[in-house]
C-alpha cells in the first residue's frame, strides 16, 4: 500500500471536468512532482487531496487511511500540510505568529485554561516557540521574525508559507508552485530547502511546478496532467521527452 494513494479521482465544475479519473501513488520519502499546462487541474487536485473540495468520485488514501470525505481541518492533524499557489498567509499578523498558528494541531490545552493562562499553557507556548525557532533557523527567517506579513516582499512570503506548513511537523507536504514568481536565486534556495525538508526532516513532498529545472533537480518521479487527465508518469527525463507532454505544452501539429 502506498503512502498517498489517489484512485480514480474526479470532480466537475458545471460542465467542466477539472479532474478526470486521476490515479497515482506516492511512496513514503520521495519527492513527487505534478506538472501540466495552465488549467490542467493541478491545483484542483491539491484541493481535493487536502480536503478543500470533495470529489464527485474516486478516493484518496493517506498512510493507510481513507481521507476522501474528511474536511481540511481534520486532514491537517494526520500530518498533511500544504501551501497555496497565491500565498494565503495571515496578513495582519507577524511572521512569528503565522508560524505559531502552524502549530495549532499540536495544542494540548483547552480554551478555558487559555483564559487563565495557567503555567501549563506557558510551558506549552515555550515548547511551540522552540519548534518554531527550529523552522526559522532552517529557512533563515530570523531577520523577519517580528515583521507583519503585509510589509514583506513576495519572495519572503513564499518562504514563510513553507515555514508555516513545516510547523505542523507534517509527514506529507503539498507544495503548490513553490517557486512561482521567485527570481532565479530565490528559486534555487527553494530547491535546496525542498531537498533539505525531504532528506533531513524525512518529509514526503508532493509539488506542483512549472519550473522543469527544479523538477528535474529535486523530484524523483513526475506526473503530467492535461485537461484533468493523466498523460504521462515516470522519471523527469522520461516525462519531458514524452510526446503527449510535448504536445500538451507546445500544441500538436
Amino acid at each position, binding site marked *: 500500500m502506498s503512502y498517498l494513494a489517489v484512485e480514480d479521482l474526479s470532480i466537475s465544475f458545471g460542465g467542466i471536468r477539472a479532474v478526470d479519473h486521476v490515479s497515482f501513488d506516492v511512496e513514503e520519502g520521495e519527492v513527487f512532482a505534478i506538472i501540466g499546462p495552465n488549467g490542467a487541474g493541478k491545483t484542483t487536485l491539491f484541493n481535493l487531496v487536502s480536503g*478543500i473540495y470533495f470529489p464527485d468520485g474516486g478516493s484518496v488514501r493517506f498512510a493507510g487511511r481513507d481521507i476522501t470525505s474528511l474536511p481540511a481541518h481534520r486532514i*491537517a492533524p494526520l500530518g498533511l500540510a500544504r501551501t497555496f499557489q497565491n500565498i494565503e498567509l495571515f496578513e495582519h499578523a507577524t511572521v512569528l*505568529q503565522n508560524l*505559531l*498558528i502552524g502549530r*495549532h494541531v499540536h495544542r494540548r490545552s483547552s480554551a478555558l485554561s487559555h483564559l487563565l493562562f495557567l503555567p501549563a499553557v506557558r510551558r506549552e507556548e515555550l515548547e*511551540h516557540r522552540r519548534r518554531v525557532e527550529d523552522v526559522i533557523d532552517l529557512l533563515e527567517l530570523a531577520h523577519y521574525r517580528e515583521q507583519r506579513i503585509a510589509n514583506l516582499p513576495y519572495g519572503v512570503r513564499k518562504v514563510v508559507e513553507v515555514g508555516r506548513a513545516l510547523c505542523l511537523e507534517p509527514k506529507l507536504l503539498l507544495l503548490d508552485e513553490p517557486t512561482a514568481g521567485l527570481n532565479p536565486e530565490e528559486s534555487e534556495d527553494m530547491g535546496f530547502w525542498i531537498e533539505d525538508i525531504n532528506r533531513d526532516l524525512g518529509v514526503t513532498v508532493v509539488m506542483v511546478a512549472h519550473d522543469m529545472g527544479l523538477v528535474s533537480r529535486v523530484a524523483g518521479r513526475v506526473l503530467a496532467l492535461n485537461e484533468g487527465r493523466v498523460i504521462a508518469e515516470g522519471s523527469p527525463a522520461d516525462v519531458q521527452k514524452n510526446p503527449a507532454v510535448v504536445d500538451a505544452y507546445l500544441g500538436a501539429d
Partner: protein
Amino acid sequence: MRFLFKTHYNQDIDHFKHGGDRFWYGLLLVLAAAAPAALGTFYLGELNLVMIYAIAGVGLMLLVGYTGQVSLGHAAFLAIGAYTHSLLLGAGLPFLLSIVAAVLVSALVGAGVGWIALRMTGIYLAIATLAFAMLTEQTISRAEWLTGGFRGLAVPQPSLFGMPLTQGWQRYYLTLALLVVTLFAALNILRSSTGRAMVAIRDSEISAESVGINLAVYKTFAFALSAGITGLAGALFAHRLGYLSPDAFTFLISLQLLLMVVVGGVGSMRGVIYGALFIGFLPQLLAIARDTLPPQIAQAPGLEPGIFGLILVLVILFEPQGIFGRWLKIKSYFQLFPLYRGATHRRQKTYLRTERLR
C-alpha cells in the same frame, strides 16, 4: 527609540514587555484607583459608564477586531446580561453568582447565534446580527410576564458579601476590578493558540482550515466569548440604569458599541479603552454643542445617531486604524524624527489571493 534585548522566549509571552510598560500601566491603575477621591459624583458616574462600555468593547473587539466577524447586534447581549442579572438578583441569588449566570446565559445565546450565523460573513452577518438584536428587543417588550415589558423592571440593589453597594465609588471599584479581569482574560486568550486561531480565521479562512483550525468551533467560540463578556457589561449596565426597559437596548447602542471598536482601533485592546472614552464623553460634548447650535439643528430628531453614523464613516474612510493607529503614527513620527516618511504607514496592496476557492 527603545531597543529590547531579548534573552528568553518568555519576554515575547509576557503582557508587559519591559519596565516602562509596567511603570505606565501601574501608574494608570493608581490613577484609576485614586479617581473617586478627585472626581465629583457626576464624573465618577460617567467614568464608571466608560468602563462598562470598555468591558462590552473588549467583548466586541474579540469578535470584530480579532475574529473578523462583524456584529451589529451586541445591544442584544447587553440586554440579555442585564435582564438575566436583574431577574436572578430579584429571585434572591447572591450578586456574584447572578453575574456569573448572566455571563453564562449571554455566552450560551451568543454561541447559538454564532452557530446559526456560521455560513454568513461580512455585511450579511452584520444584517443577521442586527435582525437578532431587533428580535431580542421585541421579545423583551412582549414577554411582560417575565420582563415587565415597557412597564420596566426595577433592578435590585447589589450587595457583595452582605455589604450593600449603593455608593458611586463602590460601584466604580467593582467595575474597575471587573474591567481589569476582563482585559487580562482577553489578552490571555489572544496570546494562546485559541487567540491565534481567531486571528487566523480573520485573515484567511482557507489557510486556517488547512492548518487544522475547525472554523465552526472557533467562530462559535468567539461569538460565545464575545457575548459572555458583553453580558457581563450588561449586568453592570443594569445597575447603572436602575430600571430596565427594552428601549434602553436599541439599535443605537449596538451602533455605539461598533463605533467604539472602530474609532478606538480595530485589532487592539488599547483601542477599546480609547473608543470607550470617546463614546462615553461624546454625548456630553454633543449636549454642550447643542446649547450653541441653532435650535433647528440642535432639536432635530435623530441628531445623535446621525452624528455617530457620520463619525463611523469618516473614521473608516480616513483613519481605518482608529485612534490607536493614529497614536502609533504619532509615536513613530517622534521616534524616527526627522526621518519619518508619510509612506511608512501607507496601506499596502495585497497580492493575489485565492478567494476564488470559496
